[in-house]
């Protein structure tokens, strides 16, 4: 069974204080690892897809990295508007490599950035 564990559950930062969020996963053939941002009462907003170990993606203050067992979301000099829940999800390859895209999510990290 595919599993995704995110840590910490909650993270409080001061504006400008850089940090990292962790996503550990076990999956039968990783097809993709996804990071989403979710604001309260809203749907997940796509941030990044990572496909293979060593891959990195960047967007503004966010940088996502991937190893064979985990992914990190690095936040550099965060601002209060970065406050949200950050979700990690994996897509498995499935039997015979068939995948229709089912995502397995972690429980998320609630990030609060204080001014």
């Amino acid at each position, binding site marked *: 069974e595919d599993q995704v564990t995110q840590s910490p559950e909650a993270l409080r930062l001061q504006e400008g204080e850089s940090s990292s969020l962790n996503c550990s996963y076990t999956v039968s053939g990783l*097809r*993709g690892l*996804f990071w*989403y941002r979710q604001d309260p*009462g*809203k*749907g*997940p*907003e*796509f941030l990044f*897809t990572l496909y293979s170990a060593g891959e990195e993606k960047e967007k503004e203050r966010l940088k996502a990295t991937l190893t064979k067992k985990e992914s990190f979301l690095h936040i550099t000099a965060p601002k209060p508007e970065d406050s949200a829940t950050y*979700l990690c*999800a994996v*897509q498995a390859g499935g039997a015979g490599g068939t*995948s*229709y*895209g*089912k*995502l*397995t*999510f*972690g*429980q*998320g990290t609630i990030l609060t950035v204080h001014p």
Partner: protein
Amino acid sequence: EPEVTQTPSHQVTQMGQEVILRCVPISNHLYFYWYRQILGQKVEFLVSFYNNEISEKSEIFDDQFSVERPDGSNFTLKIRSTKLEDSAMYFCASRAYLAGGRNEQFFGPGTRLTVL
């Protein structure tokens, strides 16, 4: 920028009643999904739909659930006889064709279902 839309934003129903949640996926996408998120819990996969049929479903997606793409734009989730434990946010998502393309799913804003 194209986006997934969902209606209604909030649905309140009595236990045992039928509800239909509606979604309009991004227009050139071919894969469609429903997920749900019970308050304070993980986002959970319910079902995937491709080429006018269910391609994968979870254990949650039992006989009381059904999905349909009644026309070229809408994608619906029907819950035949709602239970208290069906109260959750229901998210629709869509994805472009896979081969050589991007795998990311784009989510709608959700429908909050409250079963009384």
